[in-house]
């Protein structure tokens, strides 16, 4: 699994951090998404898929 984010689309809602805080963070200056782990381990896969599903700006893509 690979996590790809689009910083331009991101609206800093913070949903991805709620869903998977070991994988996503927010930049301090404006809240834009930061990926902590581009290749998250299998046990976080469901959380990461949920993060992509609840991103209101559709800024997260998962490559399985």
């Amino acid at each position: 699994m690979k996590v790809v984010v689009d910083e331009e689309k991101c609206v800093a809602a913070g949903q991805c951090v709620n869903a998977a805080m070991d994988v996503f963070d927010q930049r301090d200056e404006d809240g834009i998404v930061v990926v902590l782990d581009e290749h998250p381990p299998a046990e976080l896969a469901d959380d990461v898929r949920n993060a992509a599903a609840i991103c209101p700006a559709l800024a997260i893509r998962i490559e399985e």
Partner: protein
Amino acid sequence: MAEAETGLAPDEQVYFYQDDRDAECPFAPPPGLRALHDKAPVSRARIWDGSTPWLVTGHAAQRAILSDPRVSSNDKQAGFPYPNHVMAEGAPHHPLTIFNADGADHTRIRRMMTRPFTRPRMEALRPQIQQFTDELIDQMLAGPKPADLVTAVSLPLPSLMICALLGVPYADHDFFQEHAQWATRSDKTVEQQNAANAALGGYLANLLQKKMEEPAEDVLSDFAARIKDGDLNLPEAVMLSMILLIAGHETSSSMITLGTALLLDNPGQLANLREIDDTKAVANAVEEILRYLTVPQLGQRRIAAEDFEFEGVEIKAGDGIIAALPAGNWDPEAFPDPEKLDLTRKASHHVAFGWGIHQCLGQQLARIELQVVYGTLYRRVPTLRLAVDRDELDFRPADALAFGISELPVTW
């Protein structure tokens, strides 16, 4: 115009969106709204001004329409489905804000406002939110019974937090709580609402000017610095400050009040919540209560920027579109048995904070406030109960921007 194009006569019978809830099920969306959704995920509905915008009721359809770039938030265009008179009259005069801007303008403005509301920053406020909550509960318990939960906890907690974040002196809270409430209430006249907006605007302009001279670590000081740098002008900064102040009050406050009334009405679920000792499980419960109640009952409003086909209907440029969020959150396709309050349900895909690029900016603050209150109040006051019958509660009317209850008499 929309009527002529779709062949709808001004008096043709279509669902009126601002329909009353069922007094027997006061927490549920109006039965008529649910029945409408059972027929189709998108249909015409009539609103207060007689116009008939598209009402999107399906969960998937709402997410699709609210992230569709062919749909605009520009409320200065004829045909925009305003929620009430005040918004209709005010919209042409408003500067660009996160509410009415699209695309690059929206991104520019939103990014000036996101920094103080990130999830990590809100998480860092949890101890302060817990402290305020404990103090407010202490004060309520030390006072007379019955107490009004709205004045004891629901209003002061979000108010204390938004004041601290914005850098607005809490000592002025009587003034702006009243005015912030007026601005969202349908039982006030247009003149009263305009006067409330003007008073709040003047107050915030004055405060922003002070922050330009003596900046502190708060949002208003950030805006003041941006005025100095030429990124914002004063009216824009006042409008953005007012949005944060008002939004920071009513919605979280309503969720505390309504959520408590809902839980007291569901004693089994409340008992489970009281036993939960895990932050994640409480967080999950908050998502379900957000879904169930969907405080922004008048939905998210848009206007089509071009012609397109959507869910089997032909939407024309200039057509009004409303995502009726309470219906989306009760769509059985997304939430099986939606009338069942289930605090263990996976509900994080709800649309209570809206969807798309305009999704609520303060949602992480609201979440942590609710996690702390729901995780504290019923444990500390296990005998908490309504001091009146549920039928006597004064639920906000169907045309109020925020669903709520004006007073919640409780005893213990």
